[in-house]
């Protein structure tokens, strides 16, 4: 207790110690390395991929890994290594934009609900609950079927649906703070609601939102890949892990490399994000497991 509060740094200079703390943990080191590698690959893969991702070669159809094609070829004879390397680009782009947007709108609405409180909050939270009770895939498919696929639809759809659970988290975090005297003091001085949200509540909810955002990111990646898997995400021939798994699924019994490669790509990214989120939560001191006695 004394240890952590004594080493507490100022808000401005908080980024550096938090980063140091994350990197001091094995989970943070491994997680951030994985995420960083994936982002790097997404940026550089068009130039380092050994083959053209859409080049079909019927002679290579479902061929096993070889010295020329390290991870083999898929059912159209396309190089799996090249496609796997590039398979995260779309997913990272879409979720990279949608996650911060989802955290922002969900966080703002959640803090507002928490601040307003009372009956308005009760009623609106039941609406949120109703939304959360529907299976996510159903909700998304309805929107995508109505408005069509493509990034222009996927980003708003993911932003909308993944912001809803953030409302819940932000509201709960706000409730922890709203009863504290500094919020009362701000109200008594006569500050406006926006000023109270911006100056008093947000800085205290931000930590929780950051961790929540990191967790939401990995969920969103899974959702995006699932949509691609079902054929509602990225359209062929664009390489995408979800789509690749879907395509190679039928040949899994005799050509498993077609599934294994994109699965490794997707799972390392998600594990990386989850490990980083875990380390971030611990570095910010909001990891609940740590507080359990003995």
């Amino acid at each position: 207790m004394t240890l952590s509060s004594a080493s507490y740094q100022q808000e401005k200079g908080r980024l550096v110690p938090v980063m140091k703390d994350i990197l001091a943990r094995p989970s943070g080191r491994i997680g951030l390395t994985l995420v960083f590698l994936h982002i790097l690959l997404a940026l550089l893969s068009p130039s380092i991929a050994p083959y053209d991702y859409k080049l079909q070669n019927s002679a290579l159809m479902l061929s096993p890994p070889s010295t020329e094609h390290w991870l083999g070829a898929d059912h159209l004879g396309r190089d799996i290594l090249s496609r796997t390397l590039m398979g995260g680009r779309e997913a990272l782009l879409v979720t990279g934009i949608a996650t911060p947007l989802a955290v922002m709108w969900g966080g703002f609405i959640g803090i507002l609900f928490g601040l307003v409180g009372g009956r308005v909050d009760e009623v609106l939270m039941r609406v949120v609950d109703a939304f959360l009770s529907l299976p996510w895939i159903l909700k998304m498919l309805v929107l995508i079927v109505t408005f069509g696929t493509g990034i222009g639809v996927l980003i708003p759809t993911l932003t909308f649906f993944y912001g809803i659970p953030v409302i819940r988290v932000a509201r709960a975090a706000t409730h922890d703070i709203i009863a504290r005297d500094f919020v009362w003091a701000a109200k008594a001085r006569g500050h406006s609601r926006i000023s109270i949200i911006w100056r008093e509540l947000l800085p205290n909810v931000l930590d929780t939102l950051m961790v929540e955002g990191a967790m939401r990111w990995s969920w969103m990646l899974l959702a995006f890949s699932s949509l691609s898997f079902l054929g509602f995400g990225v359209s062929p021939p664009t390489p995408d892990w979800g789509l690749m798994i879907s395509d190679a699924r039928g040949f899994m019994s005799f050509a498993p490399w077609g599934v294994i490669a994109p699965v490794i790509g997707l799972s390392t990214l998600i594990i990386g994000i989850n490990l980083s989120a875990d380390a971030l939560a611990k570095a910010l001191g909001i990891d609940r497991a740590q507080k359990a006695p003995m």
Partner: protein
Amino acid sequence: MPQPAFIEIKNLSVGYTSRSDKSILVLRDVNLSITRGDSVGLVGESGSGKSTLALAAMGYFKRGLHVISGQIHFDGIDMLNIERNALQRLRGGRLALIPQNSGQSLTPNLRIGQQITEALRLHSNIPATDFHAGVIDLLSQVRLPDPVGLTDRYPHELSGGQQQRVAIAMALASNPEALLLDEPTTGLDVTTQAHIMELLRDLAKDRNLAMLYVSHDLGAIARVCNKVMVLYAGETVLTGSANQVLLSPRHPYAHGLLASIPRLNEASLPQALDGRPPMPSETITGCAFADRCKLADQTCRSSPPPLDHLESGETVRCFHHYQIGQLNRKPQKSAKSNPIATCKNSALSLSNLSVSYSQPGLFSKLFRSQDIPPSTVERITIDIKKGETLGLVGESGSGKSTILKTIAGMVPAQSGNIILNQTEPLDTMVEKRPAAYLRQVQIIFQNPDDSLNPRHTVAQILAQPLRLYYGLSGTPLRDRSIAILEQVRLGEHYLERLPSQLSGGEKQRVAIARAFAADPEIILCDEVTSALDVSVQAAVLDLLDALKRQDGTTYIFVSHDLAVVKAISDRVAVLYQGRICEIGPVAAVYSAPFHPYTDALIGAVLEPDPDVAPRLTADDVVELSPPKTGCQFQRRCPRKLGSICEINIPPAQEVAPGHIIHCHIPQGDL
């Protein structure tokens, strides 16, 4: 022949390893021995290591702490090299702990009977068939009313004082030979505290216990302990009998600590002990107290003083203990020497204010199936003059904080008016008040940890009112912030700090600075010193008094501590269940004639003087809601007249000019 020590701690040093792999000491070379029949009081400011030492007597150390050297023996048993099972049997068995917050140490979903039965099953030899009788016996030993009915209740159904009694009963279940008490009455009301102290005193005597009593409250220590040990920065600085330490302390720190306690028989502000204790991580070359000591010289700063054993049996860690007479106990200045209430204009006037928290539901509104419960606060009529300090005093639930929140516009008044500066009545909700009025009323809260945003630097905290009310920014904002910080005796270098980098006293200064930044007419102080150490409390009171003198601000000062209210206030209102019992000038309220409740409160105050015993007149029952008719104090009043007290609202009797007592007892008999 002296008895052998029952609990013996020898040369104990306890520490933790910091992140930078430095070994940091929390306790340094402490010796303590307690024989049976002794009760030793452990005194010190927060962070002095007193709780660590008490828990060490049980062989327990908080996570991260480890013994660096020393020995701990309990009745000859080596507590540091003991088998786990044997230690478990000892703890809660022969050696029992009564923790600070018993409400939290009782299991919420177990009935009182079940909890005590468990203690009996684990730690006593009585047969299972006798458990029920045993539980009832224990509950009556701690003087709880209706012990049979109590066994079926849950902890949340009991008041704080009753919970503490149950915790004591649980500790007694094993028939312990030693009791460790860690601030057992902190947070309880004065009357409850006094009753528990008497209970502990009797238990220790009857059972010939060895007791170790940790408290920052010297009044409680004076009542229960026969020996006292003072810790400072993890070191023993003074030990001796309760009389020696509390009446003629031989160490400058103990001397300063005692001088900083406000007392009922003094009309002035207590003397502040400046500075703060060193952090455990700081390296101390000489005496740890040298920086705050008026007797300190070059020797004190360069070499650590040894623990001297005096002929009187005391031990003192000071080079200059023979010069202690040079420190005068008289305060340098007296607050009451120049009363300020010269201005006759009213700053704030409350007329017939009442507040109710209960909101009748639709059903009861329609069918009137339930009676409307009595208001939490009722009939509050007070006129506060400019520059005056009004003290509001009463136990928890007396409605004192509610009145402050109503004035601030955070709790709506049910009826009555709040009039600022003799203008039109203020709207009851803060959102509807004009900005000019908002600036004039500011609040300082009890706990600065809670009232300062942990993510804001001091500069940002002070900027809030300055921006809002004066539209300052840039250099003028910074200059004004520095000026305000200097007023509360903090320097410019505090601007960039976060609340977590400040000590408790510094945080409260920042909170005070924030209130004064608005340049208000009235400041509402809600228990502003009760979260602070006594020495810090004295400094904060001193600061509040100085600022008032400078700016002519009006204070409404809420506290449960009668001595603090007496020290700072010009006029006092005593509240019970949201109604005024007595109001008048300080000197008049604190002397006869008394309202029976004021009498009970003043009687229950524990003075840091072993020779003064409290007078316990009223029971320590906690009432949850005020009675529907008649006098608010009827159910606890030791001088109740009869049915008149239950039916009629007591009349306001002006016993002296400005001194009003609300009671049915005729003026001459009060």
